[in-house]
Structure formats: C-alpha cells, structure tokens
C-alpha cells in the first residue's frame, strides 16, 4: 500500500472488518435509498417538464448527485430563468459540500485525483453514515453507502423521466416525514457528550429561526459557525 492520508489516520484494517464495513454502509443506506428513489422519480418528472430529455436528466443525476441542487437548478428553468441563473442556484446549494469534503478528506486515500473522485459520493446521508462519533470517517462506509444511494437516485430519475408518472405522491404516503426522522437517527449517535448536545441544540435553534424568516439554506453556514465556536471553547 502506498503511504498517504488514510494509513496515517487509522491502523490497517483486516479484510473481514472491511467486508463488514461494506455491508454496514450499504445496509445503513437502504432506508435512505427508498426515500431518495422516490425523490429521484419526482426530479425526473420535473426535469422532463423543464425540457430535459431522459439522457440529460439522468446524466445530471449521475454526475451531480445532489438532489437539492438539481431541483433548484431545474426549478429556475421551469420558472423561466436562463441557464446561468440555474447553474448559480444549483451551485450555491452545493457550497455546504466544501466543508463536508474537507471533513472527510483524512479518510480518503490515493492521489489527488482519486480522492477528488471519491469525494463525489459525499452527500449528507453517505457522509453521516461514514462518520464515527470521534470525528473520524470510514472510507469504506462512505463508498458503499454512496454507491447504493447513487443507484437509487439515478434509477429514480431515469424512471421519472421515462415513465408515465405525474409525480410520486410523496404527501399521501407521508414520505416527507421520512427524511427528518432519518437525519435524527443519524444524529443520535453524535450526542454522546454535553458539548455535542449543546452544539446540536444551538444549531437546531438557529435553524428554526432562519426557517421562520425564510432563509433555511443559510442554516448550513450557521452550523459551521457553531462548530467553530464550540471547537474554540473546547481548547
């Protein structure tokens, strides 16, 4: 093995443990993938309505792999905006991955290009599944959960763009309640110390305020600020 980031962070992992991590990551991703698959169908339907053919919509999902960003970009077009406004809207919603990408960096391995490619599998779900309570990340769980989630998103988009669907009736089946619950289940293991709990509660309180004044997207930046302040206080 060539020595780079990963080996410094963690001791070599035996094959059995790695296989277990592959299975654990993929299994943890399944409930999220069901929700993301339904979300993907909705995105495919929206993109079809915005003039994207199935190949364009599915390529976008396969290469961008950020639901909120893609929805924002396509919504701009649906509302009559140009391609530049659509790309800017989508890009702004991606900025949170700057922080998450840096956070997961020590777990990745290989050269610069390979780590940049592996980083593309980072979305909130795979990032959280890969995270350990000590602030480290498991590369194998990132990749295995990321691939499962990616398949759900891409296949959902393809089905939505090709199929006869109007849109999945997310509301009728209560599927909109699934993602806050899933994020709570991912959050629970990270509340082990009083400091982490106060960081979570403070960030949640800020998110409530920012949602109330209709700028929920800025709450991600506030989470970063909270983390900086708590890091500084914990010195």
């Amino acid at each position: 093995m060539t020595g780079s980031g990963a080996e410094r962070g963690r001791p070599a992992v035996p094959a059995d443990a790695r296989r277990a991590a592959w299975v654990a990551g993929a299994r943890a991703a399944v409930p999220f993938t069901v929700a993301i698959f339904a979300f993907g169908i909705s995105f495919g339907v929206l993109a079809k309505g915005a003039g994207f053919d199935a190949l364009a919509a599915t390529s976008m999902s396969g290469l961008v792999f950020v639901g909120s960003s893609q929805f924002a970009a396509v919504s701009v077009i649906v509302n009559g905006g140009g391609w530049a406004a659509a790309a800017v809207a989508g890009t702004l919603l991606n900025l949170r991955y700057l922080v998450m990408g840096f956070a997961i960096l020590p777990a990745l391995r290989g050269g610069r290009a390979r780590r940049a490619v592996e980083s593309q599998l980072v979305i909130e779900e795979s990032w959280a599944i890969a995270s350990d309570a000590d602030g480290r990340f498991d590369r194998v769980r990132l990749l295995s959960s990321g691939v499962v989630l990616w398949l759900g998103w891409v296949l959902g988009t393809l089905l939505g763009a090709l199929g006869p669907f109007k849109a999945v009736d997310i509301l009728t089946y209560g599927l909109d309640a699934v993602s806050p619950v899933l994020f709570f289940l991912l959050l629970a293991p990270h509340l082990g110390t009083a400091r982490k709990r106060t960081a979570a509660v403070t960030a949640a309180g800020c998110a409530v305020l920012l949602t109330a004044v209709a700028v929920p997207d800025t709450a991600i930046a506030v989470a970063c600020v909270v983390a900086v302040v708590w890091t500084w206080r914990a010195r």
Partner: protein
Amino acid sequence: MDLEGPLSSDPWIVVGALVVTTFLIKGAGSLVMGDRELPAWFPRFVEYLTPALLAVLVVTQLVGSAGAHGMTFDARIAGFAGALVAWRLKAPVPLVILVAAAVTAGVRALG
C-alpha cells in the same frame, strides 16, 4: 438556442455547468490540500460540525417547505413524534421509518 418561453435554456448547458462546479466543490478538499495534513484542531471541529449540521437538517426537513416561505407545521410533526416514541422503545430502524410515514399519512388523511 431560441430565446422564447420558459424552455429556452439548453438543458445540456445547465447540466455541464453544474457538473463542473459540483466536481470542483466536492473535490475541493483534495484538490486544494494535496498531500498536506489538515491542522490539528480539524478533527475536533468535525466532531462538533457533525451534530450541528445534522440537527440543522432535522429542523429544515421537519418544518421547512420547498413551496412556501417560512415555517410549515403539518402532519410531519405528528409523524416525527410517533417515530421518536418508536425510537425510544428501541424499535428497529425500518419500523421507526414506517411509523413516521404511517402516522404522517394518517394524520394528513384525517385532517
């Protein structure tokens, strides 16, 4: 490219632009840092970033709404509360999810 109507943007231009910016943003860590080490305080920062970020996501997914401005209190709250009860009772994850969806759908159907 014709410039009339809402469908004037070439979808492939949007796809291309967003693919490039996403790759650069998601890959920025590796592209910027190369083989240098992150500073010593960074793991501790991530230790707090994770709960803070996930707590934000819980809130925005629970009371946010794509179509409306401000907070939306709807059947999701009941579904979330039901799921919390199931979680406290140590129900397995698929059951917790099922409770969330079923309670939300039920409350919505009644209301």
